[in-house]
């Protein structure tokens, strides 16, 4: 066990920009970007909004040609519709830009001290100074306290504490050392103490920070598979409504001619429905709400991950996280606290509990392992035995644990008449042998207690003493067990409700593994797991069509991370692991995987919910616009005006204003994502259908009616 534990800050509070709420200032700040996005050369990528922009251009021309309050009102609101859509995207990108700016500060120009012809163990290598940008893969550099690491790489010599706050936002320094799973260093971070030799693994210009910047800025954003599919559906809907509107015109001309007595209005005349109104009908019907917010939803989803200090190398990986069927979790550090802890003293043969606790504590005073510390703490908590410092008993001689003896303990010399006393604790077989060697006779009772603890997956430590002149005897057993982190069972229950199977991976024997699996509430476990077993398990799950997510940090995890559909590597891990996975958790918190899955799901749900909302909106818009268009020709069609809107012009204007405003109103929702609680698919569907389906039908009826009343009140040219 390494002496220094990696910092594992609780990930409850995102360390970066506060997420969720939309600051109105953000809207204002993003306005220039939104205006730039009006450029048709970029807007065409969003077919729905591109059509709206073309419509707005067309109505602008019409308004100039044949000016009226109604025409200008519609034109202005059509432009606003496009602008609001751009604004949504610009705001989403703006958050990433703020993040990128922080990162850019970390990517300062540095000078590297390159070692020429370096070989391991070389005492005085030749050194030359080069610009960091000149570094190539496999160059070797030396970095000393106070210097900035010039590029991503692996420590090949030495150990140092490194300040990685520039990328993780976490101020506590971390230890980086050669060999093992904590060898990766990131360019732009600063060495605080000592000296390390680093072998550069990045290609020039492709450092981790460079990748981070382009990711959070959305520069390299590619549409994800579901987003592409949704775009196809939206394009199809746009085409069908485009056809419905265009083909309406000959019928309108025919109808107007048939009802020759009907007066010409701003809505319909002898040439059919006016261009302004046709465009209005089209914009009202095509799915503008989701079309406007779609890319903002995607960017914000990635951003939510970044706020939780997770970097995904692609949006595809985030979506895949939502689809995950199987979650592989390492036992240690993820499900359990990472170390076995003493939970109980079980005295035997009439030994007083206090006596056993005292002996156990004495033998553990010098034991710096977490297990040893936990014995000291348990004795203090349960029996009020204050931990004595090692120095308090000056002549005590501590016997360290060795793999050979499988025991540790303490030898207390006889002082002031008291006989010398030796205490040993360790594996049952080893301690029993020691008791026998020292003239004692272990009872059956010890074996029973030991077996009982083993059967529940715990680890028994037998404590024995040998006082001079007496036979050695066993005092009792300390029950060490893996402590499952609090709240894990609930999380796994939530996973199960979401339809995700959790599998615990552990190197423990099957018996121990089963006990912990049951306590933590995971669905399955893989005991005595070797890296290749992990890979085989992932392949097996994938053969069955399941998507697998896992976390890992070691180089030997790399193949499994690469094979998994979602591979989250820990920032503390090796470069190989970071390269293999498709996400990096800067907090190095393996339980983050569960949050990642939720973010992935939330992303899809937000898209689905707003699509449903957008389509459901059409019903009310039909009832506003159709009677407004044709009631002048066929008065009976006023029967469709169930909202009793005051005039055709006001009805159409209200529908268009509602259509534009609803985008702004939904920007916060698009950025934050719809509320997500782990539950079954059926429960999610009924809730979201209720809120966004029925809500989507009802909301515009109310909104359009309110706008109609307001317009009639305040805009004289319309009623």
């Amino acid at each position, binding site marked *: 066990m390494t002496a220094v534990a990696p910092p594992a800050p609780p990930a409850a509070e995102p360390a970066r920009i506060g997420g969720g709420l939309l600051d109105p200032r953000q809207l204002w700040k993003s306005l220039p970007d939104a205006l730039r996005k009006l450029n048709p050369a970029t807007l065409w990528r969003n077919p729905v909004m591109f059509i709206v922009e073309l419509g707005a251009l067309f109505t602008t021309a019409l308004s100039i040609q044949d000016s009226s309050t109604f025409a200008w009102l519609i034109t202005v609101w059509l432009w606003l519709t496009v602008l609001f859509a751009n604004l949504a995207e610009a705001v989403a990108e703006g958050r990433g830009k703020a993040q990128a700016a922080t990162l850019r500060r970390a990517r300062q120009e540095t000078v590297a001290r390159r070692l020429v012809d370096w070989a391991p163990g070389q005492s005085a290598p030749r050194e030359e100074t080069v610009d960091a940008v000149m570094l190539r893969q496999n160059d070797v550099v030396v970095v000393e306290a106070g210097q900035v690491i010039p590029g991503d790489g692996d420590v090949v010599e030495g150990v140092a504490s490194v300040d990685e706050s520039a990328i993780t936002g976490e101020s506590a320094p971390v230890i980086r050392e050669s060999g093992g799973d904590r060898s990766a260093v990131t360019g732009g971070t600063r060495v605080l103490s000592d000296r390390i030799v680093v072998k550069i693994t990045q290609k020039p210009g492709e450092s981790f920070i460079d990748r981070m910047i382009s990711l959070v800025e959305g520069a390299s954003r590619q549409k994800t598979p579901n987003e592409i599919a949704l775009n196809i559906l939206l394009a199809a*809907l746009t085409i069908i409504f485009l056809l419905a509107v265009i083909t309406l015109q000959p*019928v309108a001309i025919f*109808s107007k001619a048939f009802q020759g007595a009907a007066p010409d209005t701003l809505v319909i005349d002898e040439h059919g429905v006016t261009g302004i109104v046709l465009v209005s009908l089209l914009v009202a019907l095509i799915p503008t709400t989701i079309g406007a917010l779609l890319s903002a939803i995607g960017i914000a989803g990635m951003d939510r991950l970044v706020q939780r200090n997770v970097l995904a190398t692609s949006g595809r990986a985030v979506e895949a996280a939502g689809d995950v069927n199987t979650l592989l979790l390492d036992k240690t550090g993820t499900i359990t606290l990472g170390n076995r802890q003493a939970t109980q003293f079980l005295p035997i043969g009439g030994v007083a509990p206090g006596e056993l606790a005292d002996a156990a504590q004495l033998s553990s005073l010098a034991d710096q392992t977490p297990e040893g510390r936990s014995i000291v703490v348990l004795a203090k908590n349960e029996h009020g035995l204050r931990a004595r410092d090692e120095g308090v008993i000056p002549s005590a001689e501590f016997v360290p644990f060795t793999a050979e003896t499988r025991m540790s303990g303490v030898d207390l010399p006889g002082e002031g008449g008291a006989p010398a006393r030796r205490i040993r604790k360790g594996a049952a077989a080893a301690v029993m042998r020691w008791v026998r060697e020292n003239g004692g006779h272990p009872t059956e009772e010890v074996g029973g207690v030991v077996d009982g603890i083993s059967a529940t997956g715990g680890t028994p430590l037998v404590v024995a003493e040998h006082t001079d002149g007496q036979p050695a005897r066993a005092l009792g057993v300390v029950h060490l067990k893996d402590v499952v982190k609090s709240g894990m069972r609930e999380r796994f229950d939530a996973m199960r409700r979401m339809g995700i199977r959790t599998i615990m991976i552990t190197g423990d024997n099957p018996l121990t593994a089963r006990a912990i699996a049951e306590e933590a509430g995971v669905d399955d476990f893989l005991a005595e797991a070797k890296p290749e077993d992990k890979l085989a398990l992932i392949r097996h799950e994938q053969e069955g069509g399941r998507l697998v997510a896992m976390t890992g940090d070691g180089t030997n995890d790399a193949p499994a991370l690469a094979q998994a559909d979602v591979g989250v590597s820990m920032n503390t891990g090796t470069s190989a692991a970071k390269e293999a996975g498709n996400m990096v958790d800067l907090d190095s918190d393996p339980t983050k995987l569960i949050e990642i899955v939720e973010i992935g799901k939330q992303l*899809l749900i937000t898209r689905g*919910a707003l699509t449903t909302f957008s389509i459901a909106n059409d019903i009310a818009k039909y009832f506003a616009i159709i009677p407004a268009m044709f009631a002048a020709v066929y008065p009976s069609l006023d029967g469709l005006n169930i909202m009793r809107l005051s005039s055709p012009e006001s009805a159409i204007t209200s529908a268009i204003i509602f259509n534009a405003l609803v985008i702004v109103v939904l920007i916060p929702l698009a950025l934050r994502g719809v509320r997500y609680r782990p539950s079954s698919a059926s429960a999610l*569907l009924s809730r979201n259908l209720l809120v966004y389906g029925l809500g989507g039908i009802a909301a515009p009826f109310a909104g359009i009616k309110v706008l109609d009343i307001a317009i009639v009140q305040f805009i004289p040219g319309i009623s």
Partner: protein
Amino acid sequence: MSTTVAGVFFVLSLVLFVALAYRYFGDYLFRVVTGTRHSAAERLLYRLVGVNPAGEQSWPAYARSVFAFSLLSLLFLYGFTRLQSKLPLSLGFPGMSPHQGWNTAASFVTNTNWQSYAGESTLGHLVQMSGLAVQNFVSAAVGIAVSVALVRGFARNRTEALGNFWVDLTRIVLRVLLPVSIVGAIVLIAGGVVQNLSGGTDVTTLAGATQHIPGGPVASQEVIKELGTNGGGFYNANSAHPFENPTPWTNWIEIFLILLIPFAMPRVFGRMVGDKRQGHAILAVMAILAVASVILVNTFELLHNGTVPNSVNAAFEGKEVRFGISNSATFGAVTTLTSTGAVNSFFDSYTALGGMVPMVNMMLGEVAPGGVGSGLYGLLMLAVIAVFVAGLMVGRTPEYLGKKISAREIKFASLYFLITPAIVLVGMATAMATKNKDTMLNVGPHGFSEVLYAFTSAANNNGSAFAGITVNDQWWDTATGLCMVIGRFLPMVFVLALAGSLARQRPVPASAGTLPTYRPLFIGMVVGVVIILIALTFLPVLALGPLAEGL
């Protein structure tokens, strides 16, 4: 028994028997399309045609077979109608004009049976029997075959094979359509439908005039006209003609025959994908839409709003007294809910809103229950869209029966639901923007409804008509013929392409996170998608037609 009670009893007894047919006839159909044995007659046919019945086809091969077969049928039928005067049993009728020949051939090959001619005064017995009736069988079988291929796409994994079109076609004709038709024809003959090869009888009427009463092989054609949801009548008056549909109980039989296969297909779907609940769900969507439609047409017709119906106190214009309002309205709803297009009353004379419902039935894409085969694949394509939106809302890449619905699948489903409305709207607008609308015999909204109905019927392969326009001139024959061919075969490409892409996939195992596609919520969602996505597209044009007239 009042007429309304009789109408309700009529509908309820149909519902009961259709439910039984779903269960038992559906199982029979399932065995036919999944069986591995070939009868002696089938083996002989395969040897004659040179087909290896064991060889399965990928989707492009399946599609090529469908189109090759249909193209051959089209050419054959075109030749038949053009050369009729030179063939036996022509009853002295001349060949059709080129455009009418094209229209008729297109119409029968596409299972539309739009008739721009009057059967009894245009076609002789040979063309009727070995031209039209044969297409009534095989065009229906083509539809069923394509739907079975789509279901195989859902049911199979990691394969290119979607079955063998020639085997599907042969089995459906020999084991399903022929036997049921033989039994059905005998029943209809017992009910008074004529069946002979007579050239007609000249009789002297009471008033002393001479009337020519044409006879012919009616029953044999009548039964497949309904069973195969074809709809092309032997007589111009179609099922309103007493020789085609003499009594209320033959009327019941004909409606039942129309509904038999379309409503049994969801059962085949459920059985083939190994989850009967999936079949029940599709059946439920069909049934909800169908029952709503039957109730609406009945209500509008029984309420008889409108100047003339109000004054005579019933909407009886264009309806047969022997059927009454309700049995006519039910037949009208059923014939447009399926792709049949047979009529026992005259839609043009329906009340404005009563006439709108059949139009909407077709606009929905005829999915409730739709044509034989085409109804099932149409609804499954829309279910894919519903699954996609619903699937996103549960936070997963949408999947239907374990198959991921991603960009490729959505592309085909979107193109599918796009194509038919596009044909209807473009055809209708072209007619209305040109002088071709001048063949309209009515004015104003009603006149427009007739044009809209014509294109809706042609593009959706229904074949019924509002009539009221002269559609046998060159432009109309050509235009509606194109609508029928494009409206039939282009969607089939997308259906088969989707089937191919589904069959290739590795299935995703179901979990609690998987959207269950058999619960009422999902059923409601599919109904919603059908209505909001499809029907609302047509609301603007409906407003200027039947709604303007009827509100």
